[in-house]
């Protein structure tokens, strides 16, 4: 694999205990993140994209969730089995995360400045209070918040959703992480605000050179932000490759179907949209073999056997489908 990889996830299996028994939300997923790139993980709800991110952050809900097997190699260490205390040093420092709903991720009773300052306080123990407050203001300015000196005095409920997401980003970036995991960061935002945030993230990434794992269900957002894309379906990787390959030359029937089913602005009105029949199977009643086969227009008998292996179709364009075996 690529030498530039700063994070390499190998055969990750994450499972949850539910009433229906133990389910594997992420099943044998491998990917890598390279320095300075944006890796987009796309998929529908329940495909395991968020769980993948939480596994990397080691933020699985206890006691039900756990990493069953696989390795998460981060700068030479397997953080999948790192003790919790050592994980504290990495999480938020070297790998940061922003969430879909910034209101719930911010503490409503603390001032914005204090919340950003807290990050500095934890990260750089030597900083004095003045430096911390200056740093907070500076971070806010960096994420494009106007009048940051006034904003640090405000509480999360006093600012708008877009601004909150900017604050979250400021907090995530305060300690200059190597990787930023953005889990649906714009889903709760309006289109015009989404555009602002995406622009901001692109700009910050260009500035800092950090790697971003961008998780979303919106193909449009992926197309606009990512360098490489990982398409997930029902806990497994369906297809992975550079962004232009995925969008222009999708291989997996799922990717294809997905791209076709989106109504496009330039499309014909009231025309029947392409449909992927059926629905995403629940994780406790997965079909055998390829998990997509019940909905796949190209399903073959072999698809019912075991999950298709990875096929390298083209340079860096990998797909898990018997059509390409």
């Amino acid at each position, binding site marked *: 694999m690529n030498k530039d990889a700063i994070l390499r996830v190998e055969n990750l299996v994450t499972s949850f205990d539910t009433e229906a028994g133990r389910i594997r939300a992420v099943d044998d997923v491998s990917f890598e993140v390279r320095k300075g790139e944006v890796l987009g993980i796309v998929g529908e709800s329940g495909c395991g994209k968020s769980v993948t991110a939480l596994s990397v952050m080691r933020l699985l809900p206890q006691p039900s969730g756990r990493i069953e097997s696989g390795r998460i190699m981060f700068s030479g260490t397997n953080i999948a089995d790192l003790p919790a205390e050592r994980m504290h040093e990495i999480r938020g420092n070297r790998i940061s995360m922003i969430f879909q709903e910034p209101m719930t991720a911010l503490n409503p009773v603390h001032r914005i400045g204090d919340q950003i300052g807290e990050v500095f306080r934890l990260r750089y123990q030597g900083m004095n209070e003045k430096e911390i407050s200056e740093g907070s203001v500076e971070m806010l300015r960096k994420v494009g918040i106007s009048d940051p000196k006034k904003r640090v005095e405000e509480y999360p409920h006093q600012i708008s959703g877009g601004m909150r997401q900017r604050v979250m980003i400021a907090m995530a970036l305060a300690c200059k992480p190597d990787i930023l995991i953005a889990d649906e960061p714009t889903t709760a935002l309006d289109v015009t605000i989404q555009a*602002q945030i995406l622009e901001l993230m692109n700009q910050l990434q260009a500035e800092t050179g950090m790697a971003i794992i961008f998780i979303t269900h919106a*193909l449009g957002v992926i197309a*606009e932000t990512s360098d490489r894309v990982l398409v997930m379906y029902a806990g497994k990787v369906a297809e992975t490759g550079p962004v232009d390959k995925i*969008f222009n030359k999708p291989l997996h029937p799922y990717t294809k179907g997905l791209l076709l089913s*989106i109504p496009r*602005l330039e499309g014909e*009105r009231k*025309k029947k*949209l392409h*449909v992927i029949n059926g629905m995403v199977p629940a994780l406790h009643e997965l079909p055998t073999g390829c998990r997509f086969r019940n909905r796949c227009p190209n399903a073959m008998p072999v698809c019912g056997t075991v999950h298709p292996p990875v096929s390298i179709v083209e340079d860096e364009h990998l797909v898990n489908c018997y059509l390409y075996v």
Partner: protein
Amino acid sequence: MSEYLLEVNNLKMYFPVYGGIFRRQTGKVHAVDGLSLKIKKGETVGLVGESGCGKTTVGRAVLRLYNLSGGEVFFEGDNISGMTQGELRLLRRNMQMIFQDPFESLDARQTIGEIIEEPFIIHKIGTAKTRRDEIEKLLSRVGLSGSAVTRFPHEFSGGQRQRIGIARAIALKPKLVVCDEPVSALDVSIQSQILNLLLDLQSEMNLTYLFIAHDLSVVKHISDNIAVMYLGKIVEYTDADSVYKNPLHPYTQALISAIPVPDPSERKQKIVLHGDVPSPLSPPPGCRFHTRCPFAFGRCRSEEPELKPAPGTRDEEHLVACHLVNSGK
């Protein structure tokens, strides 16, 4: 009888805001501020705008789920704006609603059978047996199996639940259906299924839709005419194709530009609006968009632009509320 199934004249919806220890009214949210709209029978009008622009309020106000703060609503030519909830109950079978959140809008404690039966019970239609048949028909029409009747909402996926919501809405064969963001909570692969279903139902039952969404591409796909809302007002109104091909209002333009296109080769230069949507508690004077408009000039800050036919278009075909456009610059 009017050619319009629904006519909305100068609709106003203000919500009081209370504060202080005596819970006095301290202000009001101008959710919808003087909105007019007409929908012909069998037509779909799309209402698009960002969150907080009042589009959901319009949908609910039209169905008289609120008492109006001002303006009039005519349904089949009858003025329903002053009707009491009791009087409205009879009308409800003709106007229905499909909700955004398929998880929230179904009572988790009821079986699917009970949920779909409820409109029949409320309006005292049919016997237990005829209802059962109806329910079965409805379920199969929206693409669910009859066995769903005894099951509960949480046993279904989001898309299936939205189908249930649709079945409930069309149970009494309404004339008007307000679709409030019916697909925005759904997965991409399910969204197209639901949109197709809505289109099929429309043609089968000659339904009239007021289709509310924030996603312009979805709205454009399903609508005949589109109204773009900003802060409680319509800023542009035209047929669906013109919105895409010939957006006139700067806000509409920005909206279209901001939509991420699923094509990495088209990473185009965007019009990125700056700043946030102002609070509807105290909308800015003049044109409400002037705080974010890249073309705003003096008049925009003081004088509120009227929604009127844009220069160079025929009457009532392409309306826009912008000093810049209307003055022909």
